[in-house]
């Protein structure tokens, strides 16, 4: 039986410091995060870079580690009370959502991440001299050949051979672009011009060069092999997915996370299609992104000729069988499972018959409609900088400038739930323990990371609490305990008892 598809999403945001001659993106990213930490949090708690640790699970808590952890201090790196990590990565502000138990919850946390960035940007701009401005974009490319990621993470069963995961998930990743793409004007692949690729389905396909590999910044692979489970490595893998776009459309974020969770659960259960391997995966990935009319035919390794939608239908049919047998418990339950299947089905049907009907829910189609209209009105070539500007502004998080938020995209999340998710953790994963501890005992926590927390209760040594089970440390497990313990010393005493 598949393991529960605990999932999360990490987004590197584009950052621009306007009217500042020597703008340094690392300093600008630090300003963004510091503005949030100093403006909205009681106290900053740093990130702990200690590696995974064998130990008891987050609910047992009966064996504390007495090693002094290494606390990183040189780059801004904060843990938030909603369980998220907010930090400077390379030269971008990055936010990793807390671990979630379903796609709907994670979509709410992704939207909360946007809120956090907007608040950070507004706070930082209050502190800047007149005329200067920090601007944040939720996109993946600057249009000049530089890309930054929006990565998804899914918990998978360690006992499934990694080679099988690679073979069975790759055709899905290549073909899912048709409903996951955020759209982009032009191409950044070497040698291609606006006349070759005026507009494409994804922001990222141009940057992928390998089928499988460990890299994320060069020679990016369709399936990334980073093996850092941030959980019990004997039981779990964390599949680190780098082949996706940051979506402005909540419908797409929801579908991307939810359908991928279903596909990975099918792979855990050995029920995914295994006859869809593309003959030339990287080439097909790009061709599909460049094919906005969805007409190209691709050769599979078995000789069959198929479209991207054919491959999606094969996964859809397999998912129906998988769900008939196994239900939807591991992706968040029946309601969400059925909703995801219905939406996946409807999107594939609409892509086949009337793609424009998706202009309220799929970024690349919303963009295409808008840009075609704009081109017609002003009689512009695709290479006109005004279209490139529109394509940046679609992702602009400034409320008075961002285009995506004014074109009537359908919502999935609820405003009051997003507001709650800015400060509060999901109740259903270990993020609950992390977030509530930070809220309750900020002065007694030295550092936190995905699978442990380090407390300083005034007696040497520092005490590390391991949290190796993503589904332990939930509100149901520790909610009352946290309510009852007035300080961390009491919490540790009762956990260890």
């Amino acid at each position: 039986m598949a393991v529960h598809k605990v999932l999360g999403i990490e987004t590197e945001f584009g950052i621009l410091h306007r009217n500042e001659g020597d703008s340094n993106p690392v300093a600008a990213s630090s300003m963004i995060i510091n503005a949030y930490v100093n403006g909205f949090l009681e106290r900053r708690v740093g990130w702990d870079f200690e590696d995974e640790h064998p130990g008891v699970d987050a609910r047992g808590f009966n064996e504390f580690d007495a090693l002094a952890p290494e606390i990183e201090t040189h780059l801004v790196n904060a843990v938030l009370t909603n369980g998220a990590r907010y930090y400077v990565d390379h030269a971008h502000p990055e936010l990793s959502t807390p671990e979630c138990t379903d796609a709907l919850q994670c979509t709410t946390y992704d939207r909360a991440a946007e809120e956090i960035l907007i608040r950070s940007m507004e706070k930082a701009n209050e502190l800047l001299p007149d005329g200067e401005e920090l601007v944040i974009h939720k996109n993946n490319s600057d249009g000049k050949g530089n890309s930054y990621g929006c990565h998804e993470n899914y918990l998978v069963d360690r006992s499934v051979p990694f080679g099988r995961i690679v073979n069975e998930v790759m055709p899905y990743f290549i073909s899912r672009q048709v409903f996951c793409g955020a759209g982009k004007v032009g191409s950044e692949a070497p040698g291609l011009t606006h006349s070759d690729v005026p507009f494409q389905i994804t922001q990222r396909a141009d940057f992928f060069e390998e089928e499988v590999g460990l890299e994320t910044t060069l020679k990016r692979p369709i399936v990334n092999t980073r093996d850092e489970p941030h959980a019990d490595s004997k039981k779990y893998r964390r599949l680190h997915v780098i082949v996706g776009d940051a979506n402005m459309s909540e419908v797409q974020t929801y579908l991307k996370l939810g359908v991928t969770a279903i596909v990975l659960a099918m792979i855990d259960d050995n029920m995914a299609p295994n006859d869809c391997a593309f003959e030339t995966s990287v080439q097909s990935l790009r061709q599909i992104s460049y094919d906005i009319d969805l007409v190209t035919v691709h050769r599979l390794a078995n000789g069959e000729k198929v479209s991207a939608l054919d491959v999606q239908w094969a996964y859809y049919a397999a998912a129906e069988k998988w769900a008939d047998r196994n239900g939807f418990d591991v992706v968040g339950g029946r309601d969400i499972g059925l909703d995801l299947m219905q939406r996946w089905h409807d999107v594939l049907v609409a892509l086949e018959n009337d793609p424009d009907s998706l202009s309220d829910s799929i970024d690349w189609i919303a963009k295409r409609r808008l840009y075609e209209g704009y081109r017609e009105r002003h009689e512009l070539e695709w290479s006109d900088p005004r279209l490139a500007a529109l394509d940046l502004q679609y992702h602009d998080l400034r409320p008075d400038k961002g285009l995506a938020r004014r074109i009537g995209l359908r919502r999935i999340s609820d405003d009051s739930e997003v507001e709650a998710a800015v400060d509060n953790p999901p109740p259903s994963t270990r993020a609950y323990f992390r977030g509530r501890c930070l809220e309750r005992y900020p002065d007694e926590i030295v550092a936190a990371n995905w699978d442990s927390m380090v407390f300083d209760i005034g007696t040497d040594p520092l005490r590390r609490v391991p949290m190796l089970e993503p589904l332990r440390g939930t509100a149901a497990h520790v909610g009352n305990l946290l309510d009852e313990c007035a300080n961390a010393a009491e919490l540790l005493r009762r956990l260890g008892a």
Partner: protein
Amino acid sequence: MAEQEQRRRSAPRTDDVELDETETGQAGEELKAELDDLLDEIDDVLETNAEEFVKNYVQKGGE
């Protein structure tokens, strides 16, 4: 990939559905008006110096 053929036959195709011409005409007009409003709005909010904005938008690679 035999299963997908069966699945796809069950999916309704728009060319099977005969729409009243006036209806599609009206829907089309509404969509166009909506897009026109959007484009008006975009003319208002687009960065005043689009070319400069695009030129200055340089990011470091990430991940």
